[in-house]
């Protein structure tokens, strides 16, 4: 009896200590989020690398190699040099960070995203490059990511997570061997609830680091003479959800975009001593689009491959508005053709969180062909298809009549006519394409299609 009692007491005390330590990061995290004025210095001084940190660094270097080998890095020298120029202009002068070698790369990913590895590699996706409007916005993204590196966020978070995981495992062991009776029941409840609290602190801590990167990024932009208000505009652009995929989850590692806009605006109210004129921003926009046009075209192909058709139409239209040449018109036509029977914009209902969850479930269940077949059976789907194929044809024809027409226009027209059941027209367009682009990577595919169409 004594044995049982003393065991219960020891286990109970241990549990109490663990819960107490698990709450500590939460309170610390809350303290950090309080004043928007107080941003830490840009660099985490006196950071001592431990064995665990060096392992994380090694994994980062290997990840760089993997991205390169897997064809995920865009080899556009001009775009990468442009990112590098912006990045280096943001680095505080004479800064020499231990075990950091700055590298700026474009990632071939149509989803708007950017991230930093602790070794100094900054990746910005083609999808994000296309979404933003000017160099200042790109600087905002890079400044945010560079702060993660300079403040050693990855290492700090990894160290913190390791402690929390260890605590969770110990709690789980205690829970498994909890004695019976009331004390046992209390221990079981505590050890069941504590992991959820710990997980919440993991995400909470991550959100705090994001907030720090946002605010410090603004400071870096001001130092480099970029328009700091563009950081807020980037958040607004990221808030656009063309595909209905930004589902709010119970746990999020980034603060909600609305919240970020709010605290950044509040911070800018106290820090911004420069407001850029619209005319200056327009000039910046034109220069940015000129610099990144090839990356944007590359992203359109990726967006279509990834079935991000609504984004593709929106982005291609932006490109055509900037420079209506044959290639950009071709991409707009491609975007409309592949949009097919889908609506160009999601409805309010589809943009609610439950609407997005339903859509995500359906995406998992249906293949692309099944989705199109289902939509074509509805009157709205038929209407959309008719409108989009007309627009696609119009833009293909405009592209073929423009100066220096791209051969791919004929391939696009061929695919459009094939879908419309105009076999002869489709075959002739394909033949024109093969003739104009004899070394195209998809020539075999198109030749096979010609053979099949000529047989019918």
């Amino acid at each position, binding site marked *: 009896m004594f044995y049982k009692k003393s065991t219960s007491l020891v286990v109970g005390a241990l549990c109490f200590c663990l819960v107490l330590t698990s709450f500590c990061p939460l309170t610390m995290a809350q303290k950090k989020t309080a004043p928007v004025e107080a941003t830490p210095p840009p660099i985490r001084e006196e950071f001592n690398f431990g064995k665990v940190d060096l392992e994380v660094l090694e994994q980062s270097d290997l990840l760089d190699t993997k991205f390169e080998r897997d064809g995920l890095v865009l080899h556009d020298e001009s775009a990468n040099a442009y990112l590098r120029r912006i990045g280096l202009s943001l680095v505080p002068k004479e800064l020499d960070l231990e075990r950091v070698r700055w590298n700026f790369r474009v990632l071939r990913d149509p989803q708007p995203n950017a991230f930093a590895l602790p070794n100094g590699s900054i990746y910005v996706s083609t999808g994000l490059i296309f979404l933003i409007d000017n160099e200042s916005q790109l600087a905002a993204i890079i400044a945010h990511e560079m702060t993660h590196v300079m403040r050693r966020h990855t290492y700090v978070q990894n160290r913190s997570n390791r402690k929390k995981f*260890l605590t969770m495992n110990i709690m789980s062991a205690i829970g498994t061997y909890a004695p019976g009776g009331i004390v046992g029941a209390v221990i079981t409840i505590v050890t069941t609830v504590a992991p959820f609290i710990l997980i919440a602190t993991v995400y909470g801590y991550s959100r705090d680091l994001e907030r720090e990167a946002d605010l410090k990024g603004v400071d870096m932009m001001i130092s480099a003479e970029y328009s700091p208000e563009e950081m807020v505009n980037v958040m607004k652009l990221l808030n656009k959800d063309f595909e209905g995929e930004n589902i709010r989850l119970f746990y999020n590692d980034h603060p909600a975009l609305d919240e970020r806009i709010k605290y950044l605006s509040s911070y800018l109210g106290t820090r911004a001593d420069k407001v850029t004129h619209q005319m200056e921003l327009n000039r910046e926009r034109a220069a940015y689009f000129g610099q990144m046009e090839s990356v944007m075209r590359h992203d359109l192909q990726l967006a279509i491959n990834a079935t991000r058709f609504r984004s593709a139409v929106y982005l291609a239209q932006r490109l055509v508005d900037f420079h209506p040449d044959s290639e950009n018109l071709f991409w707009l036509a491609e975007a409309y053709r592949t949009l097919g029977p889908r609506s160009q914009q999601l409805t309010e209902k589809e943009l609610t969180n439950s609407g997005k969850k339903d859509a995500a479930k359906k995406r998992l269940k249906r293949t692309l062909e099944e989705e199109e077949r289902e939509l074509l059976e509805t009157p709205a789907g038929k209407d959309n298809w008719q409108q989009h194929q007309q627009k696609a044809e119009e833009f293909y024809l405009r592209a073929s009549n423009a100066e220096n027409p791209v051969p791919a226009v004929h391939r696009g027209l061929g695919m459009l006519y094939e879908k419309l059941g105009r076999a002869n027209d489709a075959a002739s367009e394909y033949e024109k394409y093969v003739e104009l682009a004899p070394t195209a*990577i998809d020539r075999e595919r198109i030749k096979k299609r010609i053979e099949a169409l000529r047989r019918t």
Partner: protein
Amino acid sequence: MKLTNSVVSRLRASILLLATLLLIGFTSPSIQAQFLHPKIKSKETSIRTVVVLPAKVSVVRDSMKGPEGMAAESDELSARVEKIIAEVLSKQKNVTTLSSPTPPTSPSDQGSSQPNYNVADFQTKFDDLLPKIMKKRSDVKKGRFTMGDEVLNLNLEKTTDAIVFIRGEGKKLTGGKTAFTMLVGGVPAYLRLQIGIVDARNGDVLLYTDPIFGGDPTTAVDRLRKALEKGFKKLPAAQPTP
């Protein structure tokens, strides 16, 4: 010391769990499901030559302090899986494996990144299709899944019948975590592969198999081989060309 009913039932559960884990650890059961396209089943299409695209297998080391990346070991394992699949297909199914997609033929492509992008985009396309296959794997038998005629853009050799896509994930446990798993419970070390064989001419998914085995994925080479042999059991062997 008098044990309460609750403690006794907990002890029983722990012993049962321990026994199960030991069973998994020592007998290395390979559970796998295989689904064949009707064209393969009816022998309308046969696979004689394949191209194995680079495998994407990732393993993590699970310690008491959480998971840790194993990028170098994952790369090694990916290469090993590709090699063993080629050996299994060759020895048991008379299927020849070609090394990789052919290098660029057009002069304008020489030295460019386009072929590398092309392979990467197909890998992504398979990654997009995979969750749909996983949702209803048995529909491979109905011929429901396809990657479309875009596969022809890979410009493989004309004799290529199919393309093999390999994905996998696994977990290796540290000593501490192994002991913890035995005492408290949890997922033991394992490797799960997801392999799709796709028609090189029209993109139809001809076979899907997902072999799994228990044990350290970075060292258990024999278990890996056995799991793969079982994973391709239903695939009909190709008739030697006369």
